[in-house]
């Protein structure tokens, strides 16, 4: 089966006045279906820029992006938008729920946007909220929810249209450890169900959920490898072994 996502020599250069500032310099990346890739690296290493480009939120300077076997880096802004509706889900650090809409509406919006009938959209909303254990908060405003709950809603919204690819930019960057655990559990769950995920993170606990870690440094990939899983045992054993 072909890769969900493939980039070839992807480059992004910002113009700061007359000085070109390279943010991403030639990234080759391939994500297989169902794979969970974590992108790590110090701040300023270009990880956010990379993931924004993968979702078409930012235009690439050169290089190629292939999504589901189709070349997408040449798409216009509008075409990208149409593509995102069905193929790409986004989760951000600051949740980015539409502040004025209720939690339920936030989850329902992408389904409506993708052209699903209002009835189906309503059903999908119910099932997603049910899975998140947020059914009773459906009519609350996002601001009334805790950070973790908001991020879970954002995740539900990103997954509403069963996208080929879930892109996440520091999804736990703004959460405390308890909320992080909630979001992690959910991410792990959708990954087990076969969702392909590319996630930028700083948080080793989140990254450790991934199948693969890609380390960026100064806009380049410096390491790309699978995370080995070996040990089993009780807390005392695992930790003592260290």
């Amino acid at each position, binding site marked *: 089966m072909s890769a969900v996502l493939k980039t070839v020599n992807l480059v992004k250069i910002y113009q700061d006045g007359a000085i070109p500032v390279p943010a991403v310099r030639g990234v080759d990346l391939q994500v297989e279906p169902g794979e969970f890739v974590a992108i790590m690296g110090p701040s300023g290493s270009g990880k956010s820029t990379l993931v924004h480009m993968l979702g078409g939120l930012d235009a690439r300077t050169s290089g190629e992006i292939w999504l589901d076997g189709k070349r997408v880096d040449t798409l216009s802004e509008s075409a990208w938008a149409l593509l995102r509706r069905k193929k790409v889900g986004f989760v951000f650090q600051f949740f980015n729920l539409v502040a004025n809409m209720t939690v339920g509406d936030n989850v329902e919006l992408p389904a409506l946007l993708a052209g699903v009938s209002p009835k189906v959209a309503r059903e999908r909303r119910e099932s997603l909220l049910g899975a998140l254990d947020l059914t009773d908060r459906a009519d609350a405003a996002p601001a009334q929810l805790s950070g973790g709950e908001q991020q879970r809603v954002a995740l539900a919204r990103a997954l509403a249209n069963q996208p080929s690819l879930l892109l996440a930019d520091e999804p736990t960057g703004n959460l405390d450890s308890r909320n992080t655990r909630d979001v992690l559990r959910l991410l792990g769950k959708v990954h087990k169900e076969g969702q392909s995920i590319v996630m930028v993170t700083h948080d080793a606990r989140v990254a*450790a959920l991934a199948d693969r870690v890609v380390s960026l440094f100064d806009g380049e990939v410096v390491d790309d490898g699978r995370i080995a899983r070996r040990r089993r045992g009780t807390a005392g054993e695992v930790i003592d072994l260290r």
Partner: protein
Amino acid sequence: MRLHLLALLAKEPAHGYELKQALEQTFGSAYPSPNIGQVYVTLGRLEKDGLVRAVDVEQSNRPNKKVYYLTAKGRDHLTTWVDEPTEGPRVRDEFFMKLVLAPLTGIADRMALINRQRRHYLSLMSDLNDLLNRTSPSDRVAMLLIEGAMLHLQADLDWLERCQEDLA
């Protein structure tokens, strides 16, 4: 295990098997289960050092059992241990030595070292994640232990990043 037993005896006198059970109960899965022989050997040493004293208690149709209790000296010893601050984690660890010395030898470059180490840490983290998922939330002590380990690991990874930024 000496101080663990002293601490348990500070609560109430107990015999060896009771102590083993109390240890398991307190630490749960966070602490490997001690074998009974080890407990008796440790108690014997403590008795020899005058920190505990054993009293034989007669039992009908069974051999006498030894009940241990804390001596005044034992209590002083325990107090001193609790009161003094505990050493922090070691930073000048082996990896640091490798990182500083490896380039001199030409055997490996730093970036490769850092990358390998990061993967190792992440794989440890992944194990801890699994462990966390398998541990029942009611096992508070185990949970805290795991989270502590994770936070240490996170700190190690952050430090790795600093190394990469400054040395690479």
